[in-house]
């Protein structure tokens, strides 16, 4: 019996300022393959379908169980994690491209440091007094934990930014992931004491007002985070905050 194979097409680019080329690889099918295994197969035998020797494809990956956020890319045009993209479920030929809303480094690797910078800008942390042993944390109702925990599972993959029409070279929207983190920290008993700092950061350019409610983000989230709920909640908080600031004459 002939060996079962399938085709993977990959958008290759050595650097952002170099030309794009598409390469096709014919890979041997095995059960339970995912896109990561495809990329490793290519690294072990980097010859295109036409028999031309190429180089292993550069890509980001770490945990391989969809909890680190590293391996986001466009797979058949959809922004998703490569580790959970199973070959059996994908239309062939499989098409791999880098995310488009972040600066390209090489092949499928992009620079998502903007998201980490935005987490910094929006003060997404609990400002503790220090690591000294000063007793227990605040009590928290189970209902609050059950709302907060799903938000805390955000893996900063960037898929929600990739699909957002307001994240582009003209608009500077921070994106749903960051807004949802602001909601998380504003929800925490200690974090709430400092919610004004975070809301201030979301009031200017790139802030919550730039969301035009396309609702693509929530569908693209691999962790099922209720992003549109977060956008609505933080939008409400920002409005109240703005009115209060105005009344205080700030």
């Amino acid at each position, binding site marked *: 019996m002939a060996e079962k194979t399938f085709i993977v097409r990959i958008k290759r680019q*050595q*650097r952002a300022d170099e030309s794009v080329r598409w390469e096709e690889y014919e890979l041997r099918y*095995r059960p*339970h*393959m*995912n896109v*990561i*295994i495809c990329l*490793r197969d290519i*690294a*072990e*035998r*980097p010859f295109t379908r036409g028999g031309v*020797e190429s*180089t*292993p494809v*550069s*890509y*980001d*990956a*770490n*945990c*391989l*169980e*969809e*909890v*680190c*956020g*590293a391996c986001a890319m466009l797979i058949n045009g959809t922004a998703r994690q490569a580790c*959970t993209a*199973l070959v059996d479920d994908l239309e062939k030929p499989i098409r791999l491209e880098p995310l488009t809303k972040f600066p390209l*480094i*090489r*092949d499928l*690797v992009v620079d*998502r*440091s903007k998201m*980490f910078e935005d*987490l*910094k800008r929006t003060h997404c*942390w*609990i*400002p*503790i007094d220090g*690591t000294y*042993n000063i007793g*227990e*944390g*605040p*009590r*928290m109702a*189970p209902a609050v*934990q059950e709302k907060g*925990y799903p938000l*805390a*599972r955000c*893996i*900063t993959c960037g898929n929600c930014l990739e699909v957002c029409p307001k994240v582009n070279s003209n608009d500077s929207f921070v994106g749903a992931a960051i807004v949802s983190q602001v909601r998380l920290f504003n929800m925490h008993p*200690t*974090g709430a004491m400092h919610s004004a700092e975070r809301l201030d950061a979301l009031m200017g350019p790139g802030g919550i007002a730039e969301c035009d409610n396309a609702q693509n983000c929530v569908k693209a989230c691999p962790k099922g985070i209720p992003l549109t709920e977060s956008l609505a909640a933080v939008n409400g908080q920002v409005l109240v905050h703005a009115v209060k600031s105005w009344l205080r004459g700030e």
Partner: protein
Amino acid sequence: MTVPKIIVVGGGLAGLMATIRVAESGVPVDLFSIVPVKRSHSVCAQGGINAAKNLKGEGDSTWKHFDDTIYGGDFLANQPLVKGMCDAAPAIIDLLDRMGVMFNRTPEGLLDFRRFGGTLFHRTAFAGATTGQQLLYALDEQVRRFESEDKVRKFEGWTFLSVVLDDGGVCRGICVMDLKTMEIRTFPCDAAIFCTGGIGAVFGRSTNSVVCTGSAQSALFQQGVYYANGEFIQVHPTAIPGEDKCRLMSESARGEGGRVWVPKQAGDTRRGKDIPESERFYFLEEWYPKYGNLVPRDVATRAIHKIVFELKMGLVGEPAVYLDVTHIPREVLDRKLEGILEIYEKFVGVDPHVEPMKVFPAMHYTMGGLWVDNEHQATNVPGIYAAGECDYQYHGANRLGANSLVSCIYGGMLAGPAAVEYSRGLESGCESVPAAIFERERVRQQDISDALLNQHKGTENPITIWREMGDIMTENVTVIRYNANLEKTLVKLDELSERFTRINLQDRTQWANQTLSFVRELGNMLILARVITLGALARNETRGAHYKPEFPERDDANWLKTTKASYNGGEIILNYEPVDTSLLPLRERKYTAKS
């Protein structure tokens, strides 16, 4: 000297905690990591973190946590630091809680605790089944706060190559490679803290992340840092086998009532859920009535091996057993185990709420690691500290579930201030070291990269060598160890090292060349594999995770000692030192007793 300069390498739990402690003391930190630190392997820890808070009225205490840990580790761990860790654990949980970790709660709003392997107490705090992720994020956020105050500089996307040693053998800096530009640079420091995690890649497929290669540890070993107890490798009993990695199914599944079983009738072809209760063999509950499904990992793993390979009672068509949570109410599963059940469903395509999961043991953790002293996380080389999975101190011959997160954080808490204190005590700091010392190391490392890039006649593929190494290490140096097979493994490693000299890089570019960094890691992995195998070969006894059927008993007279490997001119030498058992007398480790 002026203000000390501290470098931390690795941004998982241990590295982040060390960073926080140093920054908090007013000393600036440079933090280096291969991946953005928020993507470090700590995210993969699932079940929880141990601390004897005794919130369930069970009479738990930090002494009992200490006893369980030492007993679970088969008395190989030095006892004082383990006691320190167990004593500190409740305050560590409080700290994490204050940092905003979304731990599961009781109706009263207090932290909830569940049971884990190797204990009879509810001692494990948890945030769903993604506790490591939640803890990592909390520390990541604190470090980001320090970063915004310019107390921490992050270097993400850099890989560690070596330390810069002065002529007196003192660490004066590190040599690293930028994974984008492939530039090799040195950075001076007064002390460097290594928190570089696990070594899963040495075994090919494991539960570890891609970055867990042990390359940094091996590089340090080759520069004179001792490597201790390398032969103690934990194989987790329940993982989903996979070609790219084995995905962990947390012990917390059993902590919440999950049961391990196989059909009583070998070769039963019915689906798991169609096999009635009376025809199931709950072998852990039967063989270990007191601890049941929550025996320590080495015990559960050997039991599964016995079922599958000796008794031939594994599931039809593949080496596996069932891990069953289908009897647990859906509401409980959603609240406490969602994270792992989602992984099973996404990768296997079967709903574990309805069908029992098929699992098999997989390499998971190294108890061994860089040798550090019994007080400060200091290695034998002045200026080099280590904490987290990459050190050897806390778990003896077998780690208990949910002790890794607490050991990472505790180690980081000690290493940070210790490195600062050491630096403050230096007569002269790194700024007084001649530039030539740094340049010498940079050139040495550049030459290694250049030699690989300029090797045009290579025929050997790096992935192939890596896979062959992983296969033989998994086959011969994990669950069951025979000396003849260990000898064969050493021969194979020799062959692979020889083939490594003829490696074909395939990618000779100077931009985001992942092959170059992988090949450099692979060279280091081959040496670490030898350390592990030699340690296993020498140790003729059975202790914790180290099981030799030819020597089935623990042999305290000859082997109650720490393996301490050193490297001398390309040769690996094994030395031994006594274990500090000053707090808890030795006793037989036996989990078979009735309750």
